[in-house]
């Protein structure tokens, strides 16, 4: 972690950039709604900046940032009456634990730690892999992706759903995720 003056925004930005991928993954896992995620991402960074003087530097930055992000997300969701879309306590704990585990893997950055995920994608059935690539790699709207894949919305949605579960199972087999399926 960069040596940081409590009000040194440059060091803070470096820190934020180091953790931005993790933070986005966390928020997406927690919220599943792009608008909420985008809002929460911005607000969490700003709140973290304000609270930086209170940060205990003997402790890791990432869990602290996730804690701020979660509270920020809950606040925004409550304001927009979308609280139900946010992961509950048990799911949040699971996500927190698994991300903590992923972060502990030796790698230079968060993206490098996702290599097992890319390997698991190669094991998906072709139509499932296509669905994942269209929606996640190419960022297509699922309706457009369904059309591109030559199927209807419902079939495509199920493909995506099964693909995600299969990826989770594969990651667990690889030891990337821990514990029983959740």
């Amino acid at each position: 972690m960069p040596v940081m003056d409590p009000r040194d925004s440059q060091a803070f930005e470096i820190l934020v950039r180091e953790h931005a991928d993790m933070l986005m993954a966390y928020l997406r896992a927690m919220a599943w709604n792009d608008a909420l995620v985008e809002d929460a991402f911005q607000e969490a960074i700003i709140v973290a900046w304000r609270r930086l003087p209170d940060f205990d530097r003997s402790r890791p930055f990432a869990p602290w940032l996730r804690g701020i992000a979660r509270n920020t997300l809950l606040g925004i969701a409550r304001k927009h009456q979308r609280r139900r879309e946010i992961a509950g306590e048990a799911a949040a704990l699971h996500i927190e634990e698994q991300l903590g585990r992923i972060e502990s893997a030796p790698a230079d950055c968060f993206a490098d730690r996702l290599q097992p995920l890319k390997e698991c994608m190669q094991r998906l059935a072709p139509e499932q892999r296509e669905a994942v690539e269209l929606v996640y790699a190419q960022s297509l709207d699922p309706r457009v992706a369904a059309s591109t894949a030559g199927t209807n919305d419902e079939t495509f949605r199920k493909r995506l759903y099964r693909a995600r579960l299969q990826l989770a199972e594969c990651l667990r087999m690889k030891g990337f995720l821990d514990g029983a399926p959740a």
Partner: protein
Amino acid sequence: MSLHDDHDDRPSPDERLVHGLLASLAADHAARQDRRVRAAMARIDRQDGVLARLGRFGVARFAAAGALAATLTIAVVLSIGPATSSAHATLQSISNRLATGNRSYRQTMVVANRDGTQSLREAMVDVGTGRRFVFAIDLDALPMGPHLPGDGGGRKRQGPGMRGERGQPPMQGGRGRRGPEGPDRRGLDGPPHGDGPGHPGAPPVAWGFDGSEYWQIDLGGTVTRSVDPQRMRDPMPLMGGPEGELDSDQDEEEELLTLQPLLDRLGSGFDLAVVTGAQSRTADGDPLVVIEATLRPEMVAMDRSNKLPMGMGPTEPRPLDGPSIRKGRRGPHAPPPPERVRLVADARTNELVSVTADWPQGNRFLRRMVVERVAPRAADDAWFGPEQHLPPATAIGDG
């Protein structure tokens, strides 16, 4: 359909986690993350003081060219974004959507003439994945025919490709004529030869990026290529904004040449509002997202105080031929941001349907720009190369 919201059950924790991790695989993930972080830091700086930000970025790096200093000031302030809102999230979604797939748009521009009249220019814009694009002046829509309202006696012939009569474009030199051997390919990265890049006086009519190289075609059919976008962009800043904000980041410089920079620009320095009501549906009842962006008053004031470098006044349109592509985009001709922008997108897919941008105070020559979606033209990857955009054979005459 969202990614999950029509499931009967809420997603499992594992599914949520995988969903979150997969988001990192997006092709443009890094660029999006960069924009997000910069936007957040800009808000922090706004709260903590602009001067801190200036010091942090190092003014000297940006202000190496003295002419850019004033624009830099605009840019720094422009980078200080407004509060996050659903309008911003929607804008982000529209912007993200634009980066996927091949789409085509017709662009109409209202430009001011020296005599106070106005003229129209039209172009076709194709955007594709991997930041590929084609921007081609519509030669079939060159100023001919009936008078237009406000033209003061007929369409004016201004700007690239708009001089002379149709089919008899001004031609100089003989290089680059399209023949059996194909276009004259001359890289800008090599030393100039012959009569220089393109025909002197032969205005550029199309620009593009094929995924690896930038290219430009002049009216004589000469194709120039370069891996350096700065050497290809100057004649087509119509979709960009003040240049100072865009520093040496390669990604942003590439984006400057497409619709994307305009959308990016709206994320800061503008007040955004989502329009609701009757305007948010088509006549057929299909849902639309309409966002209206208004340049903040302080931005307008700053722009007016800095907008006229090198003697370019509001009634002095850009020289007919446009500046040389060798001058680079950061010359004095990059347009200021529009004062009002209206975005319309498909509410279900966030696909951009139209953009209307206004410069009511008449900064330099551009007054209004309307971009409207049309049926996609790009049939394959070759579309984003120059070969399919050469001027019509009738334009390659001997004068």
